[in-house]
Every structure is written in structure tokens, then in C-alpha cells.
């Protein structure tokens, strides 16, 4: 007889059961015996810790929360430690992973653009760090710089694709000025708002000066230093001239411009909804 046959026979032994009458009688006896017992009352803490809710909900949820907290704190710790690293450092990979994570967890267009600018700026700064490094051969440094330069261009491409949504337009400026005009007078009526709108058109020209183009369709107004696209172009030129720090500074400037524009947009939204 082989092992398989033995197994089959062993399994068949599961059909052996106690006598059903005996089972029922025994159940009754047991029930009467345990019914005699009166459970002592538990205090509130004992009730909580011995409840099914605690066993099946609180404990597992608490465990998952603890794991997430440890992961997040570990990730946070390595993120902060890796901020100033460059290619070749042990924590550099943590820096890149942190950037990818932040990017994938950001859904707002403005913030994504800002992140791409930050990453591009990081690549430019890392090039400076790599070139300043005394260790490593020239060939290795060149390979690292080339790779960083490619990443820089990739990030800038993303920024340029998205930046159109955040360029200040005549409409933006008009709305901003309208809000300021309205907020000066708490009892502003609709009539007052229409009067203010007429003034805005005049002010819009004055804000942007001689280089502004009055385009009634509300398309992009090109304006000196306040145009992020222009600043990006300047950053690229500096980068090509190998002025990496200069390029990084320009990108930081673009980030500030986006902050201003988005702040203006939020203010106008708040004003329009409150009216």
C-alpha cells in the first residue's frame, strides 16, 4: 500500500462521529453546569480590552497605523538626511525616491509645476557639486553631469508644458485689481463694482507698463521680469553657458512667481464666491 492510499484511508476516519443522542444529552448537561456561573462584572477598561471590537478592529487598525507611522517617519528621516546629497552618495537614491513620491502624491497642477521646478533646480545644483568634487575621474564626472543635464531638461520640459496655466493674464490682473477696489469699501454695491471694472481696464495697462499688449481675448501678456516663461528661457541660457548656480536661482525665481500668481487667483476666487 502506498502513501497515497494510506492518506485516503486516514481521511476516511473523519467520518467517525460520536453518538448523536449522547452529544445532545451532553450538551444539555454542560449547559446546565455553565448556567450556574454568574460572570463577575468587568470594569470599563477590561470590557474594552476583552471585547470583539478590540480584537478585530482596534488591534489590527492600530497595528497598521503603527506600521504606516514607522514607514513614514523612516521615509521622512531619510528624506531630510538625503536633501543635500549628490550622485554617488549613499542616500542619493533616497533623495530621488523622495522626489518621485512627492510628485506622485501631488495632484494640483500648480504644485506639480513647482515640484518640477524644484527638481530641475536640484539637478543644476548637483552638477555644481559633482564638478566641485575632487574624487573621481574626469570621465566619471562628465558621465554624471550629462545624466544630470538630461534630467534637468526633462523637468524643464514638464514645467514649460504646464506653465501656460499660471502665466499672469490681463484677466488675472483685472480680477486682482477688482478685488482690491471692492475690498476698500465694505458696503460696495453692484453699481460700484461696475464702476470699478471700468477703472481696471485703465489700471491694467499701467501695471504692466509699455511692454504690455492689450489683448481683449485674455491671452498671455508678455511682461518683462514677471513672465515665468521668460525667466525659464533665461535659466536655460545660463545652464547652456554652464552657469549652473545662476540657472538654479532663476528657477527658484519662477517658483516665487507661480506662488504670487496662484495667491492672486485664490484671492479672486474667494472674493467672487463671497459676493
Amino acid at each position, binding site marked *: *500500500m502506498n*502513501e497515497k492510499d*494510506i*492518506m485516503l*484511508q*486516514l*481521511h*476516511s*476516519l*473523519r*467520518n*467517525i*462521529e*460520536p*453518538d448523536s443522542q*449522547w*452529544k445532545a444529552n*451532553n*450538551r444539555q*448537561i*454542560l*449547559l446546565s*453546569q*455553565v*448556567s450556574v*456561573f454568574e*460572570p463577575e462584572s*468587568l470594569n470599563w477598561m477590561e*470590557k474594552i480590552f*476583552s*471585547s*470583539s471590537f478590540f*480584537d*478585530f478592529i482596534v488591534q489590527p487598525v492600530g497595528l497598521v497605523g503603527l506600521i504606516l507611522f514607522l514607514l513614514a517617519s523612516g521615509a521622512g528621516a531619510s528624506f531630510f538626511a538625503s536633501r543635500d546629497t549628490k550622485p554617488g552618495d549613499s542616500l542619493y537614491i533616497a533623495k530621488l525616491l523622495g522626489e518621485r513620491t512627492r510628485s506622485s502624491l501631488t495632484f494640483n497642477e500648480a504644485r506639480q509645476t513647482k515640484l518640477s521646478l524644484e527638481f530641475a533646480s536640484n539637478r543644476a545644483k548637483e552638477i555644481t557639486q559633482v564638478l566641485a568634487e575632487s574624487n573621481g575621474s574626469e570621465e566619471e564626472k562628465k558621465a554624471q553631469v550629462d545624466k544630470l543635464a538630461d534630467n534637468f531638461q526633462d523637468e524643464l520640459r514638464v514645467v514649460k508644458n504646464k506653465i501656460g496655466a499660471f502665466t499672469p493674464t490681463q484677466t488675472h490682473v483685472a480680477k486682482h485689481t477688482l478685488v482690491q477696489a471692492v475690498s476698500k469699501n465694505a458696503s460696495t454695491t453692484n453699481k460700484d463694482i461696475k464702476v470699478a471694472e471700468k477703472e481696471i481696464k485703465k489700471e491694467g495697462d499701467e501695471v504692466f507698463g509699455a511692454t504690455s499688449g492689450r489683448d481683449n481675448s485674455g491671452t498671455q501678456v508678455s511682461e518683462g521680469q514677471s513672465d515665468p516663461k521668460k525667466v525659464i528661457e533665461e535659466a536655460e541660457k545660463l545652464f547652456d553657458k554652464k552657469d549652473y548656480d545662476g540657472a538654479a536661482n532663476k528657477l527658484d525665481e519662477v517658483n516665487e512667481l507661480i506662488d504670487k500668481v496662484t495667491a492672486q487667483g485664490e484671492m479672486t476666487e474667494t472674493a467672487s464666491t463671497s459676493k
Partner: protein
Amino acid sequence: MTTFKEKKIYSKLKQKDKDAFIEFYDLYVDRIYRFVYFKIGNKEEAEDLVSLIFLKTWNHLLENKLTDVKTLRALVYRIARNAIIDHYRKNLSQNNVSLDDNEDIDVADLSYVNLIRDIDSSIDRQEIEKRLLELKDEYREIIIFKFIEEFSVSEIAEIIGKPRGTVRVLMHRALKALRGLYEEKI
């Protein structure tokens, strides 16, 4: 593997819930009966012992906070094993047989062999039951847990209080010994 139902009952038993205990009885009485039956080989004695085991389990629940075992299964089988050992000691002391050598501690009870004729089973099944009785107690226990009740290695390890590696070795040896018994008879 411990089911959700068992975990729920175990959780209620920590609060000494009587209804949960009766549910637990309904869930385990067949298994405990089979375990005891294959160990001691006598139907009436098995029934008495099973009643005792459940009462002992209830007493254990009253006196302890159930922190010593992870599952209900481990608890009741540990109590069952201890009850069987006590039963052996009582019977063997009555029959004046030494307990020191546990090689063949459980000799087949003739009444059990006769009883098999009353059970509606095939010749093969009778055969396997006989062989099971001839096995060393330790091996028989493993065979019951693993191949009849289909417990996992971890569960068996918790019940018998031995490491999982030891359980696997015992499983292998038990099956080999059982196969050996078959080959001897040919």
C-alpha cells in the same frame, strides 16, 4: 487554519460568555471525540472523557485570562491531551503497568477492536484503525492531528508544545512507521 468564527468565539470566551461556550462545544465536540477515541480506543470511556474535557475547559476559562494560548483549538487540545494522560495513569496504575517506557504505552483494547465491527466502515478503514492503534502514541497523535483533523504544522506545534521543525520530523516518522506496519502484515 483558525476560522473567523473560532476567533470570534475565542474573543467572547475571554468575557466568559456562556452562549459562546456552547457554540464552542458544538464546533469541537466531534473532533475532540475522534481524538480521544483514537487515543484510548474505547467508545464509552471516550464519551466520559470528552464531557470531562469540556468541563475542564470551562473551568480553565473561569480561572484564567486566556493569555497562555493563541487559539481556542490549542487550548482545548492541550486540555484533552492532559486528560488522556491522566486517564492512562489511572488505568495503568489499576492494571499495574509501568509508565516509564512510553514506547508502546497504548496497547490495543480488544473491546475497541470488537467495536469496529459495529461501525459502518469498509475493510480498509478497519485496517487503518487497527494500524493506528499499533503506532507509538506520539506518532498516532501526529497522524490524528495532521492527516485526520488536517491541522497545520503551526497549530500542531502549539498544541503539543514543540517546535515546528520537530513536528515535521514527527510527521515524516509517523507516516513511515504506519507504512511500515502495513508492509509487515503483507
